[in-house]
Every structure is written in C-alpha cells, then in structure tokens.
C-alpha cells in the first residue's frame, strides 16, 4: 500500500464525568491515503465527532482525554507533539469544517479578518497579501461580489454563504486533509446540494483528502470512496462505498438502510426501525455494542466482543464487527434485502426450527439461538 497520509491506531478518547468515564471513542483504527475521501457514518453519540476532534487535538482537557492510541499524520505522531507543533498543523495541514456555520464563526470579527488570520499565521503573508488571497478564496467558493463582501460580518451572510466562508477558511492554507463534520446538516436541501457540489469539485481540484462525517447515508453515497460505520465508539463496518451499499455485512448497517424512507421508494411499505436506544457509553454492553438492539443476536454476542475482521462473500477490504456475518457465522448467507424483519415470518421459522431434531452445528459457532 502506498504511503498513508493519516494512520490512526487504536484511538481511545474518554471523558471523565461525575457519572463515570464516557468511552466516547473506544479503539478506533483507520488510515487514509492522500487525496482520498472517507465517510464516517453514525448516529449522534457514536463518537464520530470526537474522533475528528481527537485528530485535531481539540478535545477539551479536562474532562476529555485521549487515553491511548496514536495518530500519525504525514509521518509524525500528533499525540506526541507539544502545543506549538500542533498549532502549526491545525488549520494549516489539517483543517476542519464544522457543522454549524452560525456558531463557528466569530460574530464580532469581519470575514476578512477571520480568514486572513490563518494566512498571516501559517503562511506568513503580510496584511495586503492575505487580503488579496482571502478575496480569491471567497471567489473560489462561490461568494458573489467577494471583493465587496469581504469586510462584512458573519450575520450579514445566510447559512449557506457562511458555510462557504467556513470552507474558504478551511482551504486557505492548502491543507492536505479536511475534516468536514456534518457540513450540511444545518442547511436546506437545495443549499446542501450546492455545498456538496462545491466540496466535491474542490476535493478533485486540489487533491485534498477529505473525511466527511455525517449521519446521512445519502450524503456519503455520492461523495466518498470509502465508508466507515461507527456505533457506540467503535468502527463496526469498513468498506468501499459501492460495496457498503450493495453488500452490507453488519446488522446495524442493515438497520440503518432499512429504517430510512428513500426518495425513490415506490411501494409504501412499513419502515423497519431499529428498536431500542443507542448504548450508554459509560457502561457499554459487554459483548457486541449492538447486541441489545440486534434482531439476529445469539448468546455469543453478549459474551464476547467480535473483532473487526474480513467478511466472507465480500470484497477484500470489507471488514465488519459481527459474529453472525464473519467466517462460520449464522448470517453469512443472509440476504439483508429479503430479511424484512417481519416478526410473523420469524415466528413461523422459530416454530419450524423447534420441530426439527437438534443438529450439531459445524465450526466454531456456539450454542442455540436466543432469537433468530
């Protein structure tokens, strides 16, 4: 494999609160090549934003702390750097686009001041140079009459325009990596389409690596090359984008895909929600994090946590964290599209299974099903 731009190994970020230790990120490893786009998908509280903040060393200490792991960016371990060194990278080599453009811009500084600050600091430009570059950047992200608007304050911009300003700011120092944390969640659909289009073109043009963090499977489908699905502080499935949607191998991913109505749905079928709530990260389930909500769970799921391993019947780089779908599991041949979670059908199957004589199961899969 080529030289990776970013290598995250076994990252653990925890928050020490009065109620206990919140294991927000609990052993996350991934890597990213230069110019690659990666999507991290998950629900709120699954640790995706904390992962991004950890990469930038922006976790508030206390209560937070990166307990374990390494983040090697461009050959250097971010976690071993002192504050000055981190500041040299932050905004310079790694930039971040935050979710809420309303709160992430400083309301009392003009746009020009906020963007040129980074230029003056990192690229040692003088004031007039920085201003010129700022106007170029605003032009680049599609702000009309940038020359006039550069001295406006954030409140004079609409939400979509503010997000463009954020993107201009992120691009200002030609970073190698941009972390976009829910960049379009606060925006309307038509504006979201504009922003996604812009990000896509910029990524192509500048060959910047992107990590796109979102809860919206639709957004990552059209934007990224690879996707990692996170649940309860862990990565539960890794695959390239086409593979993940065509051939997902983790019941949580199935649940996500089945529970959202699609714009192109013809038949008005019932949605199949994932029952229950996301896990409490102070006291996560001992085995698989998804076990309490999983309709396919078995005894082993509660006892032992599955590893993130390659899954049979899938592409070589497709990995998932599930006892059921890994080699020898009981979900290896399950077609998730046909498995509609119809409880009545399940009852029938259960009855049929109950009538069958007990059969010794091959391989390493332990005991009888608690639920099918």
């Amino acid at each position, binding site marked *: 494999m080529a030289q990776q731009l970013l290598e995250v190994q076994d990252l653990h970020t925890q928050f020490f609160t009065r109620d206990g230790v919140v294991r927000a990120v609990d052993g996350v490893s991934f890597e990213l090549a230069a110019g690659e786009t990666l999507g991290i998908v998950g629900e709120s509280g699954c640790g995706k934003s904390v992962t991004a903040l950890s990469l930038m060393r922006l976790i508030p200490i206390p209560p937070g702390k990166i307990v374990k792991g390494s983040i090697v960016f461009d050959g250097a371990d971010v976690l071993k750097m002192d504050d000055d060194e981190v500041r040299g990278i932050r905004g310079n080599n790694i930039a971040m686009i935050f979710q809420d453009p309303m709160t992430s811009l400083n309301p009392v500084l003009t746009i020009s001041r906020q963007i040129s600050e980074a230029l003056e600091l990192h690229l040692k430009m003088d004031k007039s140079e920085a201003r010129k570059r700022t106007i170029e950047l605003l032009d680049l992200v599609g702000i009309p009459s940038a020359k006039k608007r550069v001295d406006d304050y954030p409140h004079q911009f*609409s939400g979509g325009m503010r997000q463009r300003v954020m993107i201009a700011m992120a691009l200002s120092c030609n970073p190698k990596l941009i972390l976009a944390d829910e960049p379009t969640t606060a925006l309307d659909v038509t504006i979201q389409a504009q922003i996604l289009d812009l990000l896509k073109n910029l990524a192509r043009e500048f060959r910047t690596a992107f990590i796109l963090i979102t809860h919206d499977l*639709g957004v990552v*489908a059209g934007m990224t090359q690879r996707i990692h699905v996170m649940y309860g502080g862990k990565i539960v499935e890794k695959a390239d984008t086409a593979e993940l949607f065509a051939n997902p191998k983790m019941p949580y991913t199935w649940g996500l895909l089945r529970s959202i109505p699609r714009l192109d749905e*013809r038949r008005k079928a019932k949605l199949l*929600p994932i029952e229950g709530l996301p896990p409490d990260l102070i006291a996560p389930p001992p085995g698989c994090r998804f076990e309490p909500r999983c309709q396919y769970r078995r005894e082993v799921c509660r006892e032992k946590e599955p590893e993130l391993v390659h899954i049979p019947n899938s592409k070589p780089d497709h990995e998932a964290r599930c006892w059921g779908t890994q080699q020898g599991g009981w979900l290896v041949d399950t077609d998730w599209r046909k498995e509609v979670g119809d409880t009545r059908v399940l009852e029938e199957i259960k009855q049929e299974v109950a009538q069958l004589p007990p059969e010794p199961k091959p391989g390493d899969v332990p005991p009888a099903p608690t639920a099918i």
Partner: protein
Amino acid sequence: MALNTPTKPADPDYVRVRSTATADSGKNLLDVKALKMHFPLTQGIIFQRQVGAVRAVDGIDFFVEKGETLGLVGESGCGKSTTGRAILQLYKPTAGEVKFDGVELTRLGGEDMRKMRRRMQMIFQDPYASLNPRMTVGNIIGEPLEVHNLARGKEKTERVQELLRVVGLNPYFTNRYPHEFSGGQRQRIGIARALAVEPEFIVCDEPISALDVSIQAQVINLLEELQDRFKLTYLFIAHDLSVVRHISDRVAVMYLGKIVELADRVDLYERPLHPYSQALLSAVPIPDPAVESKRKRIILTGDVPSPVNPPSGCRFHTRCWKAQQICSEVDPEFIEHEPRHWAACHFPGV
C-alpha cells in the same frame, strides 16, 4: 372512540392504500382559502409605526380530506410552520378563511375556539423544548384532559397510563420528568399529549427532524399506526422529502409563502410540474451509490429571497432556469393542470 380497541390488527405487511377519488368538499376536513399571515415590522420605540411586513404566508389555498395525510414541504423560512400554526389559530391570520369541518375558525371567539381546539392538536418539532421540564409526564399528558373537562382524579390517571401504553411507553412512567427520557421517548410523550383529547386532526410540525436516524423510523411507524387506529387526519410538515413521500397521501410544496405545487404523492415525486419541485427533488441525496452516480442534479443558484420583499411576479423566477419575461411580471395562478395536480407556473412540465 375508545383507546383500547384497536381497529386494525398489527400486520407488518399491511400496505396503506387509500382511494384517490377526486375531491368533493363534503369529505374535506379542512378547507383553507387565500390564507395570509403577515408579521408586521415596526420602527420606533414608543410610537411604533409599521414599516413593512414579513409575508410568511401569502395567499394559499388547499384542502385536507378526512383521514388523509397532507405533506407540506419546503425549505426553512418558506412559511410551512406558520401555515400549521395559522390553521390552528395559534396566530391570528391576516386574511383568508380556515374552515374546519364546515366551521369558519377565523371568526370564532375564545370559548368556541377552545371547544374546537379539542378536535385539532399539534405535535411540535423539538421534544426538548416542547415539554415543560418542571411537570411530570402524568401532568403533561393529563393537563389537556383537565382543560377540556374530560377526566379527573383516578379516571385521569388511568387515561394517562392508557395513552402512554398507546404510544409505546411504560404506563408507570407517569411520575417521571421529561429529562429522564431520550429524544424519541419525549416525542412519544408529545404525541400522547396530542392524543389525549381524542382529536380528529393533528398538525405534525417536523416531528422527527430532531431525532436520530434509527429513532425516526420508530416515530414514523407510530404516527402511521395511530392514524389507522384512531382515523386521524394529519398535516405533516417536514423538510425531509423522503419522509414526506413515505407518510403522505398528497404533498404540497411551498416556496416563499406560497404553495407552488400540490398533487398526489406519486404524481408529485414522479412527475413534478413546477421547476422548484424538480430542483428540490433532485437535490435530495439517495443512499445508493449506483443510483446516485446516474442522477442529474439541478443545482439552484443563490439563496431564498427575503419574504419581507419577495420578487415580483413568480417568486421563484430569480432562481429559475426556465424564467422568461412574463415570470417577473405576472404572478402565475395556481391551476389544476392535471386531475388533482395543481401548480403555479407559467411553464409547467417535465
């Protein structure tokens, strides 16, 4: 209507189908005509004079049939929430008629209106803000019962427990406070509160947009079940077009205070007539890379203009790729181009 007699057994394969017969006003639960809701903009400290108005809703016509779900979509600031509130008379409309079951609501006085309120309820967007943090769940759900003199004392407690069961919560949660619940559970409490007075019509104002993806489906399913069980009529306000397609029978698209298109669900999503609807639909990402790579996206330029000073003629002409001279001069009429398919555009079509 007793709460504990389900009319339809839980059948997972049950696909909801409703007749799409043409409208006759006898079936309409709600008739809205030329509804306007303007919010004055004033200047001056003591002597406030009006210098303009935010035309949040600026002349809309539609009807909602008994038992159906009308979806109302549009971007933020287009007036969809204002429409919902103006219908329930939470705002006093500037002009226009709102007929609920034949009764003109805009002219009703306090007591008469309160009686009507029993028949129409609202579910709010933010379950964190719409429940009083100092009231127990029992009090929150029980309050409408007392206000409308429906139940008191022990009877009330029983009703509250029954309602909690109906929305899928533990009936013994009555003494808990809202902060003890997750977002999805709070939204269920909000739904139970709306159901308490056995309404016929519920305005759902973005009921799921504050919830997590995996929880959204639970609430959508609950709303659908309740509709079948209690023969409810919904006005479902949302900005998520996929969800609206899923839950609605008919869909209205709003832009800057006007309804630009209104049609049966399938017609609107498969053959949108108004360019704004077309752009809106094309902008929604579909979670399928194979489909996504083949789709052509219409990217609108610019932002939604201000409702204080909306563009002349067709309000969409500033962002429309089909716009011609006439569009900036004449406001297009809201016409039935195909049976039950209305649109306000000079150049409608695919």
